[in-house]
């Protein structure tokens, strides 16, 4: 790939679960500073791809490179330390930590001082716009959707280079999504992040990303600028149903 420096490269990655081939020889690259949309029908392998990149799963075949370094098979915490952060599609709620504590823990990746980490956490929470009165709440008292925002904050607090967002906007009202998109753009430009967004809400994906990759049954079936992909007949057939508004 020409153009900007490649920060993430997935090469011929295959992942099987029993008989199910979740990823089938997937190859793709992400340039530094990009926001890439990753879309595809349910079960097409998007989350699995994230899991393979972040070390939750080890690919059966293929390699993953991050900033030129082969990270295939590294432990998730090693991957995180290198600078890849993620959010979770299936919300993994915490119960006995407060919002602030949870985010602070994320920030402790880059510092040993709790105090410093807390400052970072406060910054990130303010940036995301989670109201202050929520910060002291325990995980068991906030809604499932709010967890997603905390998840995002926590990921950001780890000070990543690459951020993988798995359906972060699902379940939010349209105007909340709009606001979230603004936040993400702001973080992206402020910190020079690279972001991969998985989302079924087309407006959200389209408004964020300059480039969209489409997965279908574990393969990349289309790639390109949003409008182009959206009018690709294969994508419409497999995924969109009709052209999005």
């Amino acid at each position, binding site marked *: 790939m020409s153009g900007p420096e490649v920060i993430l490269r997935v090469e011929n990655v295959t992942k099987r679960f029993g008989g199910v081939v979740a990823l089938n020889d997937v190859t793709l690259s992400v340039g530094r500073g990009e926001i890439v949309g990753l879309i595809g029908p349910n079960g097409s392998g998007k989350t699995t791809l994230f899991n393979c990149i972040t070390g939750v799963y080890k690919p059966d075949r293929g390699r993953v490179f991050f900033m030129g370094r082969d990270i295939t098979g590294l432990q998730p915490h090693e991957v995180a330390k290198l600078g890849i952060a993620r959010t979770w599609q299936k919300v993994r709620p915490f119960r006995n930590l407060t919002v602030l504590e949870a985010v602070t823990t994320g920030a402790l990746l880059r510092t040993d001082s709790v105090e410093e980490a807390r400052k970072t956490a406060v910054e990130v929470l303010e940036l995301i716009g989670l109201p202050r009165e929520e910060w002291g709440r325990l995980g068991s008292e906030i809604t499932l959707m709010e967890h997603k925002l905390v998840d995002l904050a926590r990921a950001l607090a780890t000070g990543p280079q690459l951020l993988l967002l798995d*359906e972060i906007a699902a379940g939010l009202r*349209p105007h909340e999504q709009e606001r979230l998109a603004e936040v993400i753009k702001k973080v992206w430009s402020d910190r020079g992040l690279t972001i991969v967004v998985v989302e079924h809400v087309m407006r959200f994906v389209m408004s964020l990303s300059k480039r969209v990759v489409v997965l279908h049954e574990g393969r990349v079936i289309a790639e390109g600028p949003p409008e182009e992909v959206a009018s690709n007949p294969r994508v419409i057939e497999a995924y969109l149903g009709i052209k999005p508004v």
Partner: protein
Amino acid sequence: MTRLLELRRVNAGYGEFKVLHDVSLYVDKGEIVAVVGPNGAGKTTLLRTIMGYTTLYSGSVVFKSVDISGKRVHERVALGLTMVPEGRGIFPNLTVEENLLAGAYLERDKSKVRERLELVYSIFPRLKERRGQLAGSLSGGEAQMLALGRGLMTSPMLLLVDEMSLGLAPKVVLALFDLVVKLNKEYGLTMLVVEQHVKNALEISSRGYVLENGRVVLEGDGRSLLSNEMLKKAYLIY
């Protein structure tokens, strides 16, 4: 039309933490009713209150003219009420098919169970492909389909769905709305849905409620809500 469900000045919440304030609403037989509102407004709490999961401080929940406020969850289900929960609540260690069969737990007639199973499989062919897989390993969208399918297996008179189209591919969402209309028309299924696709939801609903901070701030029939300027602005209905 007969009144199927009615909430009268309901105050409810979790332990000491009150979430719903004086909420009244009703659902008539054959209706599709939508509930919309921002995050944390209490939509989930509302549905959970109808099912009997929360603490009810005052007010009453009436289903088929029976006050069910004191009834336990499974008793409410036996009366013909069920919910597709937020976060899906599928049984991760059961196979897809076992999940669906669990949905038909109260049905004694085996042939009816088969029939419904076929119906669900025809709606979500993906589930049929995955019928032997443990539900815990499904993708997000597949799990959502399973949760909906399982709700249908219960064959309720009134189905409550929380975040119905959450995580589903656009194509599936479109199909789903068609399906809901179809189920409503052909099988007379009454539904109360919490939905983030406000526009689509209101379009297919006969009526809608807007919930904010645990209170009903707006209610009306689908069309009129859709054209409500305030709502348009707040919820970005395009």
